[in-house]
Every structure is written in structure tokens, then in C-alpha cells.
């Protein structure tokens, strides 16, 4: 069925659009295969609103006399209302939106049709690769190698074609280790710390099962990772009890007797449906301004969203403590190793590695640790907070990552090169995008669908030709140190920029951001290009963990 066959009414005149904190507008509404387009009727300076249909999470129809109202709830949390004259037109539009906003086939999605004049296809796709990371990381060259055993995705369907492995472990052993890990996700290198050469590995759970199976090759692999040093840490993202229970369904954990040089630490993390429901509850709480303070706080608490933020940052802090302070390598895993595992390992890198705090570095981190590492974006982000559809595999783990990054950024307002606006853009793109970056669930799927050949890369586009000013942090001042965020609950806040994005509250914050920019710009103009680089460097003393780092300007 052609997409256009879903469209019974393509154009409606005299539609009224209502948005929060804007006067109602009258104009024309068009439905195309991928967009909803509203344009007001004034000839001059016509104003248009273009919404990707994929961004629409839920719609509600209501009949008012002979006309109908459609409430559109977007995945980026915007809520709009359209008053459409004519009941039939209203129903037609609604059914088109319903059909076209939930396309299943990847190649029918908009990124395959997005052809802006300033971008060309067929160039190199993406910013980074396993090989490049290896090349850049000199510390790895001695003991580590790039293995291409997964080049046809047969060893692990959700891994990229190349992975970084200890030199002394050959591919045959890796294949055996892969068979011993859920989904074939054997331990691979995720990060090598620039200070001491300690590494963060990640994997899925070992398939020890009820009879405590073991896999010599897996044990050897981990032994090779710590290479004769005394100890490594396994951070298991489940409670000890959950890890035990996993054995009943064929999963399990690394037992002390077979992995004698590894110390296991359990940290419970919620996953899947629980986290999705947290998002739903939080968004619901934020969208009712009539709550009393007590009720609001109780709903905020009840949503548990900030508890998830708290756990993620705490465990990332634990990983950092092992690597940076104690000088030990770490293996992180939960069950599948595609969600919380990536969350914790990428947050740990942000805290540890100055290179991942630049715009390019951060996007590379997301590309390596989320996209290439096989976070199932398509499943996780099929729906957002408003959908009434029965939940399948949805889980806003990536949103949780962005929230945690925002918390770090808020506590260290000078340490990251990028701004909140970049995080907000990513929060939007991950659910609905013109670009192919977040399509599919793995490299293998992207390869099969021809994503790299037929869509544009978001990250490349964000960086080219110049990064937009709004994505930069005007106060950025690089530091080589680890930036330990405080995880005391009073240091963590609701991410108002995201969750209250479409309220009046956001307006004043926007003005404040502009003010910061204008001060910094004024300064740069006066200082001249040659003096801009070193003028801000006087304010970065040692960055200490668990300090009250800032509350004077919480909004920047």
C-alpha cells in the first residue's frame, strides 16, 4: 500500500491551531506522507508549522457540533489542538495521522525521503568507528587489537562489525565467549582511561544457567583484560537477588570461583516498562498546573524518574571511582547489555574523559556507545509519554541518559562544550527525525536497510559546516579532570528544559541564555580573536567530588 493511500483528505481550510501560550491561529492544514503542515492565511510573512507525523505520539478526537477537534500529543511533549470544520474531514485527518505516524517499515520513514539541497548522499557516514577510536587511543596499541570477527554480524547480531579485544585472545576464543553471553554480547572494550590505561568493558550477562555452567574462554578473556593485575570490578546492574533469579531463565553472573580476580558489585537499576511508566507519570504530573505543592511533590516522587537519574549517576560514579581513583578495570553489564549497560558506561566516560565533553566528542560517544553498540532505538523509542498503545519494548533509556548529562552539565556549567539546546535537540531527534542516525536497532539492521546509503547522518549535519551557536556552551572551559557529579538528592533537579519545555517557564530561561551569550560575545569582540582562548581560564580550580557545585545560576 502506497503511503498516499492513507490520505483521504489532504487539505483543509479554516483550521484553527491552538498552541500553549500563543494566540490561536487560523489557516490551512495539509497532510502529506510524512508531515502535518499548518500555514496561516496571511499572505505576507506567512507562518508555518511543520510536524513530522512520526513525532505524533497520540491523538484525541472530539466532535463539537459539525466540526471536530483533534488534540495532537507529540513525542517531544508538545501538545497542540486543531479545530477542523467538517466532521468527515476531521475523521479523515485523524485516521491519516494514526496510520502514517506509526509506520513499521524503516525504508518508508522520512529519513529515506529527506533530500535537502545542502547535503549530498554517498559521502562517508557518521563521525567515528571502532577503528578510529583504536587509532586515536595510543594506550591501546600495545595490548589491544581490533577484531573483525563480527564483520558479517554472525557472532553477535547487535554488535558492530569491529570490536576492540585483548591481543592475546584470538577470535576463536571470542566466538566461544560470545556463545556464553546473552545475544552474543561478549565483553568488549568500551573505554580506555587516558590517565592510567584502565579500561571499561561492557557485555551482556553470562549464560551460566541453573547448573552453573562455565566457559573457559570467557574466563580467559576477562583474565586477559586485567592482564596480571590483581583485581577488576564487575558492576552488575541488577540486585544480587535478581542476578540469582536470572539463572532460572538461563542467565546468570560471573561466579567468584571461576573469575577469581574479579570482584562483583551489584547495583539495582530499573529497566524497561518501569522506566517507561516513570516517564509517563512524570509527564502527566508536569502537564497539570493545578496541582498543589504537596500533590506535585508527591507525584514527582511517585514517578520515580529522578530516582532513575540518581541510580544511573551513582553507578556511573562508582565505575569512575574504580577506574580513576582505585586504578582498576571494570566490566559493566546487566541482562541484555543494550540499555542500562550503555547508560552507565557512557556516563562514566563523560565524567572521566575530557574528550567526550566537546560537541564532537560527545556525539562520537553517542555514536560508538549507543548506535554502533546496538541500543535498539526503534523498539525503545516507538512511543513516548502520551501514547495509549500497549507498551511493547518502549523504554526511554536514552532520554534518561540525556537527563543525566544535563544534571552533570548543571553541576559543572563550564566543563562541557555543548549546551542544553543540543540535549533537547537530541531528545527530539531520537523519537522523530529527518536523519537516519537513530533508525533501526543495530548496525546489522541499518546495513540491511541501506541507512547509510539512503539517509543523512544527524551528527554530521550538526557539525557541518559550523556548529550552530545555540548548541555551544558560551562558558566552556575545558578541564582535564574527572567531573564527579554530586548524587545527593538535593543536587539533582527536574530537567525543566525538557519537561516544562512548552510552558511559560521556559521563556524567561531562554532570555537568560541569550543574555549569557551576549555578555560573552561582547567580551569576544572586545578581546579580539587572539585573546579569546585564554581569558576564561582563571576560574577552573580543582574539581572536587560531592561538592555543592552551583546553584547561583541554575538556568544557564
Amino acid at each position, binding site marked *: 500500500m502506497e503511503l498516499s493511500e492513507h490520505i483521504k483528505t489532504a487539505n483543509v481550510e479554516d483550521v484553527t491551531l491552538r498552541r500553549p501560550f500563543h494566540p490561536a491561529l487560523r489557516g490551512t492544514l495539509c497532510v502529506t506522507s510524512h508531515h502535518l503542515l499548518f500555514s496561516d492565511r496571511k499572505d505576507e510573512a*506567512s*507562518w508555518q*508549522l*511543520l510536524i*513530522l507525523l512520526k*513525532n505524533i505520539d497520540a491523538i484525541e478526537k472530539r466532535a463539537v457540533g459539525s466540526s471536530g477537534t483533534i488534540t495532537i500529543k507529540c513525542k*517531544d511533549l*508538545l501538545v497542540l489542538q486543531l479545530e477542523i470544520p467538517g466532521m468527515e474531514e476531521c475523521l479523515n485527518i485523524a485516521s491519516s495521522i494514526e496510520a502514517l505516524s506509526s509506520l513499521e517499515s524503516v525504508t518508508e520513514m522520512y529519513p529515506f525521503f529527506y533530500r535537502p539541497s545542502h547535503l549530498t548522499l554517498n559521502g562517508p557516514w557518521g563521525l567515528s568507528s571502532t577503528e578510529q577510536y583504536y587509532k586515536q587511543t595510543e594506550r591501546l596499541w600495545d595490548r589491544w587489537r581490533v577484531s573483525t570477527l563480527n564483520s558479517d554480524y554472525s557472532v553477535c547480531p547487535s554488535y558492530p562489525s569491529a570490536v576492540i579485544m585483548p591481543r592475546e585472545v584470538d577470535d576463536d576464543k571470542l566466538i566461544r565467549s560470545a556463545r556464553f553471553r546473552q545475544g552474543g554480547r561478549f565483553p568488549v572494550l568500551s573505554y580506555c582511561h587516558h590517565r592510567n590505561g584502565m579500561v571499561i568493558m561492557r557485555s551482556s550477562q553470562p549464560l551460566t544457567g541453573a547448573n552453573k555452567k562455565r566457559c573457559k574462554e570467557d574466563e580467559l578473556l576477562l583474565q586477559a583484560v586485567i592482564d596480571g593485575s590483581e583485581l577488576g570490578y564487575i558492576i552488575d546492574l541488577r540486585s544480587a537477588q535478581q542476578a540469582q533469579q536470572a539463572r532460572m531463565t538461563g542467565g546468570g553472573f560471573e561466579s567468584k570461583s571461576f573469575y577469581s580476580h574479579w570482584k562483583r558489585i551489584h547495583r539495582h537499576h530499573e529497566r524497561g516498562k518501569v522506566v517507561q511508566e516513570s516517564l509517563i507519570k512524570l509527564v502527566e504530573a508536569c502537564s497539570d*498546573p493545578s*496541582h*498543589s*505543592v*504537596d*500533590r*506535585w*511533590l508527591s507525584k*514527582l*516522587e511517585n514517578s*520515580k524518574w529522578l*530516582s532513575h*537519574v540518581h541510580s544511573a549517576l551513582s553507578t556511573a560514579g562508582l565505575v569512575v571511582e574504580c577506574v580513576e581513583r582505585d586504578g582498576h578495570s571494570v566490566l559493566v553489564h546487566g541482562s541484555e547489555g543494550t540499555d542500562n549497560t550503555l547508560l552507565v558506561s557512557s556516563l562514566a566516560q563523560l565524567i572521566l574523559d575530557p574528550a567526550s565533553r566537546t560537541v564532537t566528542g560527545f556525539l562520537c560517544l553517542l555514536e560508538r556507545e549507543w548506535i554502533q553498540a546496538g541500543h535498539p532505538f526503534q523498539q525503545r523509542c516507538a512511543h513516548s509519554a502520551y501514547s495509549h498503545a500497549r507498551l511493547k519494548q518502549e523504554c526511554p533509556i536514552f532520554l534518561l541518559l540525556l537527563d543525566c548529562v544535563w544534571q552533570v552539565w548543571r553541576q559543572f*556549567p*563550564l566543563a562541557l562544550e555543548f549546551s542544553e539546546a543540543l540535549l533537547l535537540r537530541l531528545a527530539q*531527534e531520537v523519537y*522523530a*527525525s*529527518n536523519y537516519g542516525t537513530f533508525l533501526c536497532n543495530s548496525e546489522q539492521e541499518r546495513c540491511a536497510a541501506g541507512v547509510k546509503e539512503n539517509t543523512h547522518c544527524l551528527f554530521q549535519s550538526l557539525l557541518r559546516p559550523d556548529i550552530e551557536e545555540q548548541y555551544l556552551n558560551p562558558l566552556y572551559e575545558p578541564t582535564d579532570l574527572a567531573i564527579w557529579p554530586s548524587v*545527593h*538528592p*538535593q543536587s*539533582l533537579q527536574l530537567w525543566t528544559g525538557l519537561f516544562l519545555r512548552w*510552558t*511559560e*517557564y521556559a521563556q*524567561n530561561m531562554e*532570555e*537568560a541564555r541569550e*543574555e549569557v551569550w551576549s*555578555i*560573552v*560575545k561582547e*567580551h569576544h*569582540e*572586545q*578581546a579580539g580573536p587572539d585573546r579569546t582562548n585564554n*581569558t*576564561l581560564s*582563571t*576560574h577552573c580550580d*580543582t*574539581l*572536587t567530588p560531592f*561538592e*555543592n557545585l*552551583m*546553584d*547561583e*545560576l*541554575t*538556568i544557564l
Partner: protein
Amino acid sequence: MEHIRTPKVENVRMIDRLTPRKSTVGTLYLSSTHTIFVENSEAHKETWVLHSLVYNVERLPTNSSGSPLIIRCKNFHVYRLLIPQEKDCLDVLASLTQLSCPERYGELFCFSFNPNLDKELREKAWGFINLKAEFSRMGIPCNLWHVTAANHEYRLCDTYPSELFVPKSASPAVIVGSAKFRSRGRLPVLSYFHRDTSPNLFIASICRSSQPLTGFSARSSDDEQMLQAIMKSNPVSEFMYVVDTRPKLNAMANRAAGKGYENEDHYTNIKLQFIGIENIHVMRNSQQKLIDVGELAAPSMSDFLWGLENSGWLKHIKAVLDAGVFIAKAVAEDGVSVLVHCSDGWDRTAQACSVASVLLDPYYRTIKGLMVLIEKDWVSFGHKFSHRYAHLDGDPKEVSPVMDQFLECVWQLMQQFPCAFEFSERFLIQLHTHIYSCQHGNFIGNCQKERRDLRLQERTHSLWPHLWENRAEYTNPLYRTDHSQTQGVLKPLTTAYCFKFWKGMYGRAEKSVASHQSPADCLNAVREESQQLEEELSSHQEVPREMDAGQGIHMHA
């Protein structure tokens, strides 16, 4: 000095509870005014704690490593010490307990604090804030309002300032009669006069008083005429609001004691509005719960949020802000004058009037303006500083964080309007500390008369010029006089999600003094440097930069 049993204890450990590694060893000294901890490290870092800021001292059972002593301060700093010998610990405890509870005004720090100012400068310093000048800034006296000498020598009301501003049309007999009909003689007088510059030309005012002595049926024609005079001095409006900041139930209960609220049948053209700010006892308990939340050792997110909810603190802050918003809206949008009162008219009334003033008048959002506002609405109108902030050993039921709440309302507004205030959070925190510290004479005593009798201006120093000289430390870099947020009336949201836990104030329990990444400092430095460069390059021409203004299509992915 007789309280100090052991002036010096060595090998004391100052414990950092969150990061025990950072605990330090040093020597503890007790002076007549301060507890001083000097680290043994090479830097010899010193921590000074004013005795008058100490809220309580708690000794924990001695353990193998020594005797732990916890010093909690009124500005929410907490110091944890480990003293090697139990005897020393007991001595320090006994000394501090006495030193932190002076019984007479004469023992307060302000009477011994000597910043080496000569007499002339000291007198000049006391003239730094001039309330007459402030009223004339508002345009008072004018054809409708004038100053009355009725309270000369405080004969009408001993807790009011001697100079009162009243409607010209109110005769001396009405003034006296109205005072007689108000609790403690606190008659309705002008607090803020709003001259609108918009085409509306509203000239509405905010007046304040205590509750009327209505009981179940009493009335006073003088008091009724007084309100009528206030209403009439705003020629454009046909009624006025009487805002009773108490919950209605409390106001009704007061009638049994011969007090109460205005009967709308007796007072012509008034609209009575209850706001529902709770009394000082509720607020005291609420803040204690909030402090406990801040002190939790390793709370989960749920513990924290639950504790925050359970304290009720933010709910109370919202009530105070709501009162201010109601008054500001009446004055600025409807052009209607407002009389504000509670019971005595020195706590909730001061909160509501001053919050409304901050919303209405950009001047009060400047460093100098906030000082003036505090001097006017709080100091001069008899807010009982010494009782509320426990300057002397006294009735614990009189203690309540009334001013804390006002400062927090301003802070919450700063969160919503980051460019609207000339001062930073640091200024509010500094003010808070000084309200409790008794280092200067400004906040000593409970009313103007008491301060006069104590001859504070001769015997102590004024805080204001000191803060003014150091204003660079308290400046908000985002403040610009021509910014849209700076202009006109602030209309804050009071949706529940706008209210945040004030970490800078209540999260200080465990903070060791360490480096911050402060964007405010960074921006201030940038700004300063810019100014220097501007001076250097004054001969160069500046090229104006144009922002891309046009935005035709709003892309919404």
C-alpha cells in the same frame, strides 16, 4: 570571658561527613565572640564561627577516637568536630552553650564589634538608608498623602516608626480613633505608593495595619473613615481590597478574643480577601523539618522528595508568594488600593507587602532597593527581629523564620526571572546570615523605639554601607537595567513545579569550603575584563553585530 573554660584545644579533627577523606586536623580556639578552627596544614586555613550564629551544640557519646561535637548554626552551617579528650569536649560544650545564648542586649556582638570607623563615618553610615527619601522617590508627600506627626515619640503606637504616611483627608481624630480600634495601635498607614507610568495612570497604594478589634460586633467609625480615606486617595477606583493574610478560620477565631477582621457591611466599598498564610508556629515547625531533610546522611531520592513534601515548606513559600502576587495584581492591573493585615501586622503583613513591592517596583530588585525595602517594611514597621531570630535567650515560641521566607520568595523569583535582579543568591544568603549574626546594629531589638532607647546608632555600626561597598561580590551578571525582565511588574508563575528546594541555603549543612564552578563568577569576570578592554580600546570603533532576525518557517521535527 568568664564563660570560657578552655580557650584552646589541640589536635581537633574537623569532619567532612560526605567526604571523610577531606577531614582536617587543627587547633580550636574559643574567643569571647568566635570559635576559631585553625588547620595544622601549611595554609593554616581558618574557620571562624560567630557565637551569636550558633543555634545549638550537641555532644555525641565519646568513642575510641574522641568526643564528637556538632555545632549547628542559624545559617544552617553544621560543623562536626572530634575532640581527643572528653573533658575538653565538655568544657567547649559548656562554654559554647553559654556564649551562644546571651541574656542581655549589651552582651551582643554588635556592641563590641569595631571595624575601626571614626565617629563621623559611623554616623554617616547610619544615614545610608533614608526612608524619607524613599517615600519621596515614590512621590510622597503629594496632594493625596502626607506625613503625620501623630506618632511623635511613639505615643500612638510604640511598635511603629515615628513618621507615618496617611491620606491627607484623614483628620487627626480619625487617625487616633483608628489606632484605638486596631490591635496594638497599629493603624492603617501607607507602605507603598504605586505611580503607574502606563496610560492607565493608576495611583493605587499598599497600606498595612494590624487586625481590627471587631470581636463579634464592635465597630469604629474612625476606622471606617480611615479606610474610606485610603480608598478615596485613589480617585480612579470604586473599592479597595482588604487582604487578610491569615487563613479565614484563624481570623474568625480571633473574634472570640475581641479581635478579628473587617465586617464588609460596616466598611463601605471594601472587598475582603483571605490568603491563608499559616502562623509563626506552623512555619517554625515546617522549617525544622526542612532542615532535617537537608541533614539526612544518605537519603534516597524518595526520602528526599517525601521529606520535602512532608515539611510543607514550599507550600508555605507559595502561600507567601501568592499573597504578593494577589496584591501586586490588584495594584498594577486593576488599579485598586490594598490594605494588608494579619494579626499584629508585623510578620505575614511584612512578607506580603514586601513581596508585592518586589513584584511591582524594579527598584526593589536592585541591591540598594532591597536594602531600602527591608529597612522600610521590616525594620521600621516593627518586625520583631530580636524575638524572631532568637538574638537573646528568650521564649522559643516567639522564634520563627519569617524573614527567611521573604528572602526565599525573592530567591524563587530569581529562579524564574534570572535577569530581573541586580543581586545574586549570595546577597540573599549574606543578608540572612546578618539578620541572625548580631554583628551590626540594624536588626537588633524589636521596633524603632527599642532601637532608639538602646542608642544603637551611637553604639553599633550599620550593615548597609558595608554591604554596599562590597556590592561587586553580590552582583548578578545577567542583570541589565534595560532588559525586559528588569522593567515593570513581574508576573511570576506560581504553579507548584516552579518552587524549588533552596539548596544554596538549606544544603549547606555539610559543605566544606571548596571551589565551585560558578557561572556567575565566570560571567562577572568576563564582564569586568570586557570593561577594562573597552577602556583600553576606547579609541577603536565598534562594529555593531546584527542578529539574524527573520524566521519564516518554524521547523518542528
